[in-house]
């Protein structure tokens, strides 16, 4: 049993090189501790990821926002950069777990754990986010989040790979996120969603819609996108949207008994998102 606290990327790469099957990467720990208890693991080694300055920053370049994998939900929620460029991510982060959990849980952890109910993943997918990944040799590669997240607690990340940061292109779009859980706050998503759309003359252009918790991983909701394309935010046809959402859920989870509830709840999610987009548009217009 060992406990490594790498302080820089070289030390991190060195730790990865020696990592065995019984060694876990630990960022906020909010999922890992529960996982180890559930699996009844009592003897294990850890590589701590919370002492790496490189992982804990949010920065920008001319065309991108760069978010360290160790950035916490609280930091995402409060970051002016994220709020400006990826408002849906800020919103999603604000709805993860409780205040205590948001103070620890990280974006990297939320993505790498690949829960089907992850709140941040649908947003990253809607924005086409990329990640920088470090391996034991010290090499850094860039991959689309969509390419390595498989869902149901699985990713294609290697045993000795760790996410360093996420890169989100700056886009002139509006975005919003909403979720429905068992209760108002501190709840796992039964369904969540993100819409990311350009607005031209009040109309949604090329809206990208992702729904989470209706499949192994958050998935693109093309039927809903088609329905929203070209519609104005102020004059959405409610019944048409309802039909599209219901059809989308039917397509996603035709055999799950929960589909009956999720259809209506997903409609609630989309309705909420459109409402938030409307407000965002009004604010932008002012």
């Amino acid at each position, binding site marked *: 049993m060992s406990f490594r606290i790498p302080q820089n990327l070289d030390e991190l790469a060195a730790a990865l090189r020696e990592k065995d099957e019984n060694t876990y990467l630990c960022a906020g720990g909010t999922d890992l501790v529960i996982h180890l208890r559930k699996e009844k693991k009592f003897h294990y080694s850890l590589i701590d990821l919370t002492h790496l300055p490189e992982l804990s920053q949010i920065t920008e370049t001319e065309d991108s926002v760069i978010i360290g994998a160790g950035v916490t939900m609280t930091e995402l929620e409060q970051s002016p950069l994220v709020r400006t460029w990826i408002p849906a991510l800020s919103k999603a982060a604000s709805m993860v777990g409780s205040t205590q*959990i948001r103070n620890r849980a990280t974006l990297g952890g939320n993505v790498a754990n690949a829960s089907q109910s992850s709140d941040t993943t649908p947003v990253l997918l809607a924005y086409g986010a990329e990640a920088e990944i470090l391996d034991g040799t010290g090499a850094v590669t860039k991959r689309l989040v969509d390419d390595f997240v498989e869902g149901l607690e699985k990713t294609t990340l290697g045993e000795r790979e760790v996410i360093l940061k996420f890169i989100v292109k700056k886009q002139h779009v509006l975005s919003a996120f909403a979720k429905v859980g068992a209760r108002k706050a501190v709840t796992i998503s039964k369904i969540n969603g993100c819409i990311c759309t350009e607005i031209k003359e009040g109309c949604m252009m090329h809206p990208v819609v992702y729904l989470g918790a209706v499949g192994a991983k958050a998935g693109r909701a093309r039927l809903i996108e088609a329905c929203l394309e070209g519609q104005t935010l102020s004059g959405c046809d409610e019944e048409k949207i309802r039909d599209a959402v219901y059809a989308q859920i039917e397509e996603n989870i035709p055999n799950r008994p929960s589909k009956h509830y999720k259809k209506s709840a997903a409609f609630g999610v989309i309705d909420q998102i459109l409402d938030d987009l409307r407000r965002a548009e009004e604010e932008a217009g002012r």
Partner: protein
Amino acid sequence: MLLRCMINGEQIEKETEPTKRLLDFLREDCGLTGVKEGCSEGECGACTVLLDRKAVTSCTVFAGQVMDREITTIEGLEQNGELDALQKAFIRMGAVQCGFCTPGMILSCKALLYENPHPTVEEIKRAIEGNLCRCTGYEKIVKAVNAVGEGEIK
């Protein structure tokens, strides 16, 4: 591992098993039994402590992760024998019943007041959303924090 950190204002160095939970380190190694365990998975908030002045559930943090960090437990809120305003408010306003959630509850509120000295009722409720209480219905807890925020209790 020789764990180095600041606990309740005091720099400490202690030999401990870094893969144990921060909760166990504080209770067993440091004798800080004001930290309570209620669910063991970060859902009830009874084990809440401040980590660099932010509220975290100490059952979901590994002891080794607090290396060079600053921890505050309920035992660290008193200053020279004088209770923190939140403690006074909880006592005076009936916010404590069985008391098992109280240390975590107070610390969540302390973290809130560090960032936001005059919170609204909604903000108070959000700060304690991760602290479950079965006795009080939260009503008097919210009132107590509000009284501190409004400067009624110092």
